[in-house]
């Protein structure tokens, strides 16, 4: 199996060394530097997740990806995720096919139904419709990816009759994934529509997702499709030692989860739950390069996945901490995982 390794950010708002928050603009400029440095460190993919909050000021990640594209040559660039339910599939396709043109064919997109939901009220969508919105829009997006004139009719956007959508992509469709957080019916949908599967694992033992990976491949067979890759997206932080990584990550993790818990239904982390999640059976990849590499290798194997994307950084961390994380991930973690997997 060919393995690839990515880094994802939500544009987590940086702080300076004294703990004062940087501006949104500084944070976005830092993300561009981080994307460029990810390529220099040997990372294969850089993803930006759509968010609309003061602590994740990153609603237009595709613009930042275009800036990174202009300064890089090899690294693949994509969303992680695009909240498709509250966007127009035609616009999403146009933005990412434009990115694909700028980057010389390096664009990807991961589509999400809406785990972060602040975009729904912002753009006038009803959260109660999120399933219907995503089903329709993902179906249309699959049509758009094929290229050529599109005819489509539904309830969530105006119909299209033999419509040519530009810009056309070179060399066929760009890679497109559906992000899934634990709903098996979403796994079936990805297979039915022919998207690759992105498993977002942010709590609990990752191995329990092995059944989802099998479900995906079996469903692809049933729908008469060839096998498609599975990726794992999980949060984490790499520093020189386990203790340093935990010391840098834990207070920021506690703060951000406490902040989003009322809306997302997360339990507020305790030091005990954090230590469990950063242990071998947890979902957080926090530690030294060796610790994190061992965990990635074990879970890629257990889950039958060929790509791992580390969601690095948290609101309140410094740009220097993130750059150190990126350097260690690219130069030490990724080569070590490759070694462990051969």
């Amino acid at each position: 199996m060919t393995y690839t390794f990515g880094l994802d950010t939500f544009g987590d708002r940086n702080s300076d060394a004294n703990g004062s928050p940087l501006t949104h603009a500084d944070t976005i400029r830092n993300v561009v530097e981080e994307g460029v440095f990810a390529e220099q460190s040997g990372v294969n993919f850089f993803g930006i997740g759509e968010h609309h909050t003061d602590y994740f000021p990153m609603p237009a990640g595709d613009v930042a990806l275009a800036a990174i594209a202009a300064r890089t040559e090899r690294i693949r660039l994509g969303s992680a995720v695009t909240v498709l339910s509250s966007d127009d599939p035609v616009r999403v396709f146009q933005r990412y096919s434009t990115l694909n043109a700028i980057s010389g064919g390096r664009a990807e997109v991961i589509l999400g139904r809406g785990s972060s939901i602040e975009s729904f009220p912002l753009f006038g969508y009803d959260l109660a419709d999120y399933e219907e919105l995503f089903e329709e829009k993902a179906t249309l997006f699959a049509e758009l990816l094929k290229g050529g004139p599109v005819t489509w009719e539904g309830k969530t956007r105006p119909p299209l009759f033999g419509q040519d959508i530009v810009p056309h992509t070179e060399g066929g469709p760009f890679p497109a994934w559906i992000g899934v957080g634990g709903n098996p019916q979403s796994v079936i949908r990805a297979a039915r529509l022919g998207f690759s599967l992105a498993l977002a694992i942010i709590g609990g033992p990752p191995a329990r997702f092995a059944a989802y990976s099998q479900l995906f491949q079996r469903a692809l067979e049933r729908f008469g499709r060839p096998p498609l890759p599975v990726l794992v997206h999980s949060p984490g932080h790499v520093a020189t030692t386990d203790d340093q990584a935990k010391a840098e990550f834990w207070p920021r993790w506690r703060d951000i989860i406490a902040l989003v818990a009322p809306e997302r239904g997360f339990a507020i982390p305790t030091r005990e739950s954090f230590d469990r999640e950063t242990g071998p059976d947890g979902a957080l990849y926090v530690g030294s390069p060796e610790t994190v590499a061992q965990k990635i290798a074990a879970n890629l194997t257990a889950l039958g996945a060929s790509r791992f994307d580390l969601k690095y950084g948290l609101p309140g961390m410094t740009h220097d901490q993130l750059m150190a994380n990126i350097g260690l991930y690219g130069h030490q973690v990724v080569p070590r995982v490759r070694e462990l997997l051969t």
Partner: protein
Amino acid sequence: MREPTTLAVLGAGHVGPVIARLAIKAGYQVAIATSGDPAGIELITELVIPGAQPRWATDAVADADTVVLAIPLHRFSDLDPNLLSGKLVVDAMNYWPASDGVVKAFEENGSSEIVARRLAGSTTVKALNHIGYHELEDRARRAGAQDRRAAGVAADDPAATEAIAGMISQLGYDPVRLETLRAGRVLQPGGPVFGVSLTLAEFERAVRDEARSLT
């Protein structure tokens, strides 16, 4: 009312399969159904909920003594109350506007009371709603285990409370009985035990005062 032996789990999203797996492990007979053709969840059942039977909702409910509602709350109004008539119904749903949007019929407080009113021919018990689906299985422990956690059970019918308390214990949690469905509001989103993993003593302490004020 006897303890459940045969379950119909309605809903195959995030929550339904997790409850179904726990129940199968505890030795219950489990059928799982969505609003549609069971063929649509055959693969899911085989790989994610081995041991469960995918069935049409009508058939699953007809053969069950207990029905677990694990569907999105805004779909509840599509469910025919006659289907559930005479059954013990576990309401594992939540009204959570911040996460799922506003549902007009549930704007009044007490989502399980609203469910119970609509399901007048059934006996409604509020349970299994306040532990996250991603934690429900990992936290389950046998009775007597030192790190066993607690889970709330609320109903207006004491025999129904007792029956589901027995089931909760089989599934892996120390049941905490609340005196009425109204008192079960303490288990809702925003309440002191929602999304928090607590031992029996911690749970009882957290709900005692608030539940009493609702009784």
